Structures are given as structure tokens and as C-alpha cells.
């Protein structure tokens, strides 16, 4: 008998049975599966099959068959096995299909959407599966899955982390939330050693996240997204505004592509003066310099000084 056939029959048998079945009973009902003369080898085969079923996600349970718990039986409870009814519109299931397939293969996400396909009547929206996929979601890797499971189970995690400036250290964090922002996933939580709420970009976590003990609850009103702030020029909360002039070649892009940009005036030579939200630190200076001689900072004076300082450093 083919192992797959035996597995399908075993699932059917346990799902349809009203009572838990002992191994002996299963053996009697499935002689072609477990009826060989050598009881030990039949038992070993059954154990392996049980492992396969658990691996596949079939909730097979061990339940005592009598009040004295002398004998144990196996059961698959229907309400733990069957997917609850979820009706999706064709547009909804198509969007999930796109999400599952966007950004590289992912067996788990694809299997999830296949299960959900059941709950739709119209199939996929034309083109959703055959056309090249139009989008890429943030890649879900083992670190992200581990962080999500830690949050779901309220466990703290340990991991090696390298900051954007290259400083590496071991962190112990109570994970309180996950935030996807500007193309990256961040884990937000309490850094236990520093006793501060911090955001960690998961792509900078080296190796794996290890579960370690119970995590404390987040404070009242905690919102993870507030701890991952990204301005138009990088991380940081825009505090004030700066004025920058752009050459005709780049002005249209600098004004259209940047959130919060306001055109002030256009000079007769085509240069455009723009008011921009300025992030703290030197991110704005760096961004303006990326335009080379096609952009010049007009105000504030501190911004101009920072740019001149950098230009002198680059000329050495």
C-alpha cells in the first residue's frame, strides 16, 4: 500500500470516528495499512505516520478511552481540523494570492492561500495568477517569523544586533510589535538592558532570534509605529523647514517625489526654490549633496555650513 494512501485513509478514519480509537482498533480497521504480523514494526509505522500528520498540521490528539486512563486512543476533532468558514470575494482572494506570491517563493504563505481558495466562488480575478506579479512584499524570513511567533506567545527574545553605525551587541528584548515601514520590517519592544523602548531593523539581526522567558506586557496605549519614525530623508522626526533651490533638470523630481515639498518660486533661469521638511541631524545635507551642483541649500545657515563642511572634506 502506498504511504500516501495509508495516510489519507488514516485521516478519514480518525475524522469520522465518534470515539477515540486505540492503535489496536485502528489496526483492525486498516489491516492493509497496519495489519502486518510483526506488531512492533506496525506500531513503528503508525508512529511515523502520526509524525507526518502533525508535520502537515493535522491536529491528532491522544485521549484516554476510559475513566481510569489505562488505555489511550487517537482522535482528530472536527472543530480543530476544519478551517472555519471564511468567504472571500474574488478580488479579496486574488489580492491574497498576489501577496503570497510577491517577493520570492514562500511555501507557508502559498499553502495558506491555497487553503483559503476554498472559500471563494468566483475563482481568481482574471490575470491575478497568470500575469507577472505586480508587486513585491517585504521579504518574510526566519527572523521575522520568529519575531511574530514570540509576540504571539508573549515570549522575550535574544539576538545579536548590529546598529546602522556598525556597533554589534547582544540584545534581550520583550517584543511588543512589528512595523513595516519604508521597505523594512522592524521589531519594537523593551530593550531590557537599556530599559528603553527601541526599534530594531530585523535585517540587521545576525543569526537567529532565540526565545528566552516570558515577556512583560506593553504599557497602556503603546503604539509600535510611533517608535519607527522615518522622514523623507531617513529616520527622524521633521522639526523645521529648510529652503533649497534645484536646477531645472532635477526640480520637477525633487518637488513631486518628496512628501511635504512646497514650491516657493521659480527663477528666470529655471531654478526652483522649494521649502522642505528638515529631519534632525545631517540626513538632509546628505540628500541635497546627492544632487551635486544641481541643488543648493538657501536656508537655514546651519544647513549651509554643514554642506560646505562636507564639500571641503570631499575635496581633500
Amino acid at each position, binding site marked *: 500500500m502506498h*504511504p*500516501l*494512501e495509508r*495516510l*489519507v*485513509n488514516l485521516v*478519514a478514519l480518525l475524522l469520522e470516528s465518534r470515539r477515540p480509537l486505540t492503535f489496536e482498533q485502528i489496526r483492525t480497521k*486498516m489491516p492493509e495499512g497496519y495489519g502486518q504480523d510483526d506488531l512492533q514494526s506496525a506500531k513503528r509505522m503508525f508512529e511515523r505516520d502520526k509524525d*507526518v500528520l502533525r508535520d*502537515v*498540521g493535522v*491536529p491528532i490528539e491522544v485521549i484516554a478511552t476510559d475513566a481510569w486512563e489505562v488505555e489511550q486512543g487517537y482522535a482528530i476533532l472536527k472543530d480543530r*481540523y*476544519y*478551517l*472555519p*468558514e*471564511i468567504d472571500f470575494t474574488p*478580488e479579496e482572494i486574488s*489580492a491574497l494570492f498576489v*501577496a*503570497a506570491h*510577491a517577493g520570492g517563493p514562500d511555501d*507557508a*504563505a502559498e*499553502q*495558506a492561500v*491555497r*487553503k*483559503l481558495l*476554498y472559500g471563494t466562488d468566483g*475563482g481568481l480575478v482574471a490575470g491575478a495568477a497568470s500575469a*507577472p506579479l*505586480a508587486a*513585491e512584499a*517585504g521579504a518574510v524570513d526566519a527572523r*521575522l517569523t520568529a519575531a*511574530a511567533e514570540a509576540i*504571539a506567545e508573549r515570549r522575550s527574545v535574544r539576538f545579536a544586533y548590529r546598529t*546602522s553605525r556598525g556597533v554589534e551587541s547582544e540584545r534581550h528584548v520583550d517584543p*511588543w*510589535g512589528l512595523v*513595516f515601514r*519604508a521597505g523594512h520590517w522592524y521589531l519594537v519592544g523593551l530593550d531590557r538592558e537599556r530599559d528603553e523602548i527601541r526599534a530594531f531593523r530585523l*535585517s540587521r539581526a545576525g543569526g537567529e532570534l532565540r526565545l528566552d522567558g516570558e515577556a512583560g506586557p506593553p504599557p497602556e496605549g503603546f*503604539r509600535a509605529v510611533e517608535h519607527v519614525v522615518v522622514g523623507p530623508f531617513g529616520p527622524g522626526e521633521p522639526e523645521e523647514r529648510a529652503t533649497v533651490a534645484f536646477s531645472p*533638470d532635477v526640480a*520637477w*523630481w525633487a518637488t*513631486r*517625489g518628496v512628501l511635504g515639498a512646497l514650491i516657493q518660486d521659480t527663477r528666470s533661469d529655471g531654478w526652483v526654490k522649494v521649502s522642505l521638511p528638515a529631519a534632525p541631524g545631517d540626513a538632509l545635507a546628505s540628500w541635497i*549633496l*546627492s544632487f*551635486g*551642483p544641481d541643488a543648493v541649500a538657501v536656508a537655514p545657515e546651519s544647513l549651509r555650513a554643514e554642506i560646505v*563642511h*562636507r*564639500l571641503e*572634506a*570631499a575635496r581633500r
Partner: protein
Amino acid sequence: MSGRPRPAATSRASDRLRRLLVLVPYLVKHPGTELSEITRLFGVREDELTSDLNLLFVSGLPPYGPGDLIGVAIEDGRVWIEMADYFARPLRLTRAEALALYLRGTALAVTPGLREATALASALRKLEERLGPETLGELAERVEAAEDGRPSETLDALRKAVATNGRVRIEYYAASSAETTAREVDPEEVFFAIGNWYVAAFDHRSGEERLFRADRIRSVEPTGEGFEPRGLAGAGRALYTPTERDVPVKLLLHPAARWVAEYYEVDAETEGAGGDLEVQLPASRLEWVARLVLRLGGEAEVLSPPELKDRVRELASRTKELYE
């Protein structure tokens, strides 16, 4: 799932079982589904599918009396399954499956300009409600995505050109040369990658296939001509295609400039003392690298090629004139 070596026959059986426990309920609910549709939806080859279905034909509920065996019929390329009431609904999502789909969907839903965004948001809400804490734990209220970018105004015009195989004239700001130029292109695919929309197109100006970032396209004007698609690849491809014209550039990044190694594709990186990082990156034109070094101020040093150093100095002088 295919293509990876499998250690033993049992794991192949588990893959096939995983597939069957999902496929059978779908076919019970959707009788007469075409084989080609099944292969497409379930990511399975037709020969794998027929061998699974043939096996199912001899399976069923022990003791396999009349009416206990699963009935399978394949006719005119369509499939019917009967007598499988216990498989009339699919297996629940495992936690790993639910998390993977939920996280991907959440990230995708904030893509600016995504046509599926509304449907995706309502699908995710249904998942939260119906799967509940049992599968998702406390996760649903702990995952957020922030929308930062703005959809590019040229996206709709580009999508229309792709759908109709229409040639367009675009004005494009090329970061590699820091110029805005006009050109005619044949756009074949619009896709989203690492925070930006791109269009894969044949560029008549260079006579080559190119990727254009949609937010750097200033205008899109149909020329009225059509084109024969060349089958250009879009989503999933590397955003930077190396060419034989590439010059290897070596930079020494001080700690404040390390982000460069995360942001650009680098060929090699070596850790140095005090948090320094030496990187090698490919560049077909030196202009954008010179501007990159310029913006890094003193935080990056050019190791090679020497002409890049000259280019940076020259660019710094020209820019500094604006401040005098």
C-alpha cells in the same frame, strides 16, 4: 516546493498529503474544475496532479465498503470528486502559514499605488476576525505597516501602455547620469520592488532593455505606435544588471556611511578597524558614485579607481561655487 532535494520518501508523502488535504475540498466544492486551472492555483504539475488523483481513487474511509471509497472522475480535462464528505472542508491554517500570509499581506497593503490595496485590506480583516487569537495569537493588533511614499502620477499611464503594447515617449531623470532626457520606450511590465515602482522596457535611445524608476519619469506620452513584446522580465529580477562596461569601485566606509552597503548592491565587503567597512560595488557610470561620495562628506574614502577621486574633487568644487 519542487526542485529541493528531499531526504526520504516519507517527506515526499507529507508534501503530497499537504496538497491533497487542500485540493480535495476545493474540488468537492468546485466540481468540474479544469486541470489547467488546478495546476495554476495549486502550483502543481499536471503529471503530479493526475498521479495524486489516481491514488485518491483507491483511498477512502475504512473499511472501504460500497460508498466509502472516494470517487474521482477526470473527463475532458475537468475533475470531479465525490464521496469524500469528511474532506469537504480544508484543513485549518497552521500558525506558520497564517503568520507568513498575514505578514506579507500587511506589508504589501501599504504599497502606494497598489491596485489590490482595498481588497487586500478587507481580506486581512476577515483573516483576523475568522482565524482569531487561536491561530494568530495577539499578533493581529501588534503588527502595523506605515505608508510613507506617494503613488507616482505616471503609474496609470504606464500600466495602460503595458496593457495595450503601446510605445510611449517619456521624460526621465536618470540618477546614473544626473540628467533629465526624453526617449521612446516599449514598456512591458510595471512592478514594485524595495520601496519603488519600476517599469521594465525596451529603450530605443540606447537600443537596450532598461529598468526605469516610475517616480523619476516626469511625463508619459503615447506615440500612437504599437510594439511586439520581447518578453522582458520585471518582478523578481535584480534591479542592477551588471554589464561588461562596469568599473569596479572600491570605497572605504566609515561608520556613519555604512548604510551604503545595505542600500546598494555590493559585490564584496570586508570589515575594517573601528567599524569601518570596505566595499566593492559595480558601476557602469562614475557620475552617480561621485555624487554618492560627495553626499557622504568625509565619511567615505575612494580607494579606486583614481579617476573617481578626481571626479569627486571636481564635483565638490563646482558645487561649492554655489555657496560663495
